[in-house]
């Protein structure tokens, strides 16, 4: 255990970003601050999702017997089971490969293997380390486990001591259930290490991460109390009646988790036994586990080489689309408005604001991620017979062009939902959209080069302060331009409204057209300034 603590301590210490004090000296915080840095967003996210689940499930605590189904479970159990199965599968497919990535990617693994450290300890330290980065679906599961006893306990009207005892049992059951999920994922990781290389594991891990976030986005937009209410619960139960045997089958660990939380001692015992068996297997299998990537060899295909006329662009696009996180950032600004379209929000002005806010923030992030790809192999890209400024600036323009294309797609789609007016509004808005995108990408790139010595292995390239600044700029400029512009379109269409009724038409136009124009001119000036400053930073770059 002490070896595991030691490995984790230095692993966490390695994750802490050095901070500069007021004298410009770099200072490293403690290992625990690094852990809290990772856990804090998950905790905030967990509380938020907990409220969402509570609102969704509190009205669904209706015994299935009330619907004429002979079962001791409730409607809430069915929905909870579906959620737990989905989240459990996502956790497994994201966590298992991430352990492999962590093991194979770490330069320390090879060194640790030569030291008198147990293989199971090395494996567990990599597993705990990965948990901090891929615990999103687990972060969604914990609130589910916590709100279940709250809703279930309320319905039983227990005495206070009895309630406390039940709550303790429920917490232990939750820990045992999480233990099973972790253990199964560890076994999955051990199994995958036999046939999966580092890159394949990375791709699978990122893809699952991508899927989990999309699931969250869809869940947050579709699973709301007003969409799943008691009035149509009967219909839902009828539809799920046949699936009842599947989602609450005793083969699922969550069935025993729910059983244990409802007071079944046998279910509790099964959970304990499952933990013992799984962790014994983990301990046993890690002894013979392959902890260094050997990589699966793909059969060589003799092919003709395709030399592009723009090799830099081809390479950048390949790297961009092969990284699942980048792919998510590229697609989300397009997917989110589509969700809005399907949930009934078809106002192009609102969609433009949302798109612009998300896309401008992501554009800067994508630029930085693409620059980071070059930094990973720096200074080798400086050997190419191309100007470093061109090499870097292509990373700024690629996300801008892609997002501008996405905005046009949304505009065309909005034409089918809202007609010609919406199309024209979108086309006019394309100019400010482009300018905001250019500005935020330039700011992101400049932020990066102001402090280019960043840890290339960190997922979060930009610091919290930099991220907040970018978000702030995206919000201010998006709202500052789009709210007056959409108000102007309403003004032209329906005449004066709100405070504009009391002002002269000249003043109204001066405000509604003047503010966006002023901001656009300010942005153009800032783009020039940022571009100049970036050029200076790039010239200094070695």
């Amino acid at each position, binding site marked *: 255990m002490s070896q595991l603590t030691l490995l984790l301590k230095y692993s966490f210490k390695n994750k802490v970003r050095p901070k500069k004090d007021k004298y410009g000296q770099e200072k490293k915080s403690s290992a625990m601050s690094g852990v809290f840095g990772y856990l804090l967003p998950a905790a905030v996210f967990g509380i938020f999702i907990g409220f969402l689940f509570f609102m969704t499930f509190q009205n669904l605590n209706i015994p299935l017997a009330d619907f004429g189904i002979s079962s001791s479970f409730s409607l809430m159990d069915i929905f909870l089971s579906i959620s737990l199965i989905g989240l459990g599968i996502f956790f497994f497919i994201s966590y298992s490969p991430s352990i492999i990535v962590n093991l194979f990617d770490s330069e320390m693994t090879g060194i640790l293997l030569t030291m008198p450290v147990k293989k199971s300890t090395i494996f567990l330290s990599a597993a705990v380390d990965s948990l901090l980065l891929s615990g999103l679906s687990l972060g969604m599961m914990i609130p589910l486990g916590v709100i279940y006893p709250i809703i279930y306990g309320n319905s039983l009207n227990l005495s206070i001591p009895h309630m406390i005892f039940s709550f303790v049992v429920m917490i232990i059951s939750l820990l045992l259930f999480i233990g099973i999920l972790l253990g199964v994922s560890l076994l999955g990781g051990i199994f995958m290490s036999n046939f999966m290389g580092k890159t394949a594991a990375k791709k699978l891990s990122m893809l699952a991460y991508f899927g989990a976030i999309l699931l969250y986005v869809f869940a947050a937009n579709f699973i709301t109390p007003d969409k799943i209410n008691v009035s149509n619960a009967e219909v839902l139960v009828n539809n799920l009646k046949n699936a009842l045997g599947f989602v609450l089958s005793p083969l699922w660990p969550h069935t025993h988790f729910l059983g244990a939380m409802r007071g079944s001692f046998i279910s509790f015992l099964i959970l304990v036994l499952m933990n013992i068996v799984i962790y014994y297997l983990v301990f046993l299998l890690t002894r013979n586990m392959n902890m260094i990537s050997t990589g699966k060899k*793909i*059969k*060589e295909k003799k092919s*003709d080489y*395709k*030399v592009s006329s723009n090799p830099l662009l081809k390479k950048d696009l390949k790297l961009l689309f*092969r990284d699942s996180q980048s792919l998510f950032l590229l697609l989300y600004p397009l997917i989110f408005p589509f969700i809005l379209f399907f949930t009934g929000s078809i106002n192009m002005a609102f969609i433009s604001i949302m798109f612009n806010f998300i896309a401008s923030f992501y554009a800067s992030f994508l630029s930085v991620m693409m620059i980071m790809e070059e930094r990973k192999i720096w200074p080798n890209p400086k*050997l190419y*017979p191309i100007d470093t400024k061109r090499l870097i600036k292509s990373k700024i323009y690629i996300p801008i062009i892609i997002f501008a294309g996405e905005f046009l797609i949304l505009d065309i789609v909005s034409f089918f939902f809202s007609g010609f007016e919406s199309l024209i509004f979108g086309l006019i808005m394309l100019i400010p959209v482009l300018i905001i995108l250019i500005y935020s990408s330039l700011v992101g790139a400049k932020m990066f080069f102001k402090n280019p010595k960043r840890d290339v292995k960190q997922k979060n390239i930009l610091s919290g302060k930099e991220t907040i600044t970018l978000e702030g700029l995206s919000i201010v400029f998006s709202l500052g331009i789009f709210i007056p512009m959409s108000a102007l379109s309403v003004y032209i269409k329906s005449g004066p409204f709100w405070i504009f009724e009391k002002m002269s038409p000249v003043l109204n136009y001066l405000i509604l057209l003047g503010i966006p124009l002023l901001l656009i001119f300010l942005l153009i000036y800032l783009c020039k300034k940022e571009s100049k400053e970036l050029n200076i930073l790039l010239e200094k770059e070695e």
Partner: protein
Amino acid sequence: MIKTINLTKNFGDFAAVKNLNLDIKKGEIYGFLGPNGAGKTTTMRMLTGTLNYTSGSVIINDMDLRKNELKLKSIMGVVPDEPKMYENLKGFEFIEFIMGIYNCKKEETQKRFEEICEAFSIDFLSNYIGDYSHGMKQKLMVSSVLMRKPDVIFLDEPTVGLDARSAKILKMLIEKYKNEGSTIFLTTHILEIAEKMCDRIGIINKGEIIAEGTMEDLKKLSTTGQNSLEDIFLELTGEDEISDIVDEI
């Protein structure tokens, strides 16, 4: 072919390279030796345009590097000290990228690359570079440089990570390219390679050239009559008391 005039690089107060003057002829293999931290990689980075120099000048093929950086980079081939490549590209995609970025003649370059691949037993081009071992990466990096047949080749520890067969092939290829007119600037810690392959050797220590010439010239510099490059190197770099240090441990 490669000339430096009072080339200097300072990192703050620390002078990594001081007034370096080199004159390497076309078709020559020049070995650049020195202990760790002597300034070898810094010099190579300045010569290849990846590091700005503080003062002095670099002339390659009668052109000033600062004024003709991109033009000169297109006739250079560099195998850096670390074979870092885009991990999310497959081997053959990296080769396509290099062919494109250097504007290579496709048929000729592809033919040469395939021959080099056969020599180095490269059969992993369909795999992602991220899954390569150090040796595999080094082979790909070396091949991506040699396939272009550059006029000036810079090799920083090129045999590191290569198996004995591949290292031997590389040495033979270097000789072949030299005979065909390429100029080669080579740094290595394997003194046997330098002794056997290089026409001239320069030894750098603490940022300054302390000895330069053919093997015969270097032997003359030895005050103790040493004959092997290893002994001469240790004598010149002041590390000849190493047996005393080892005895003390």
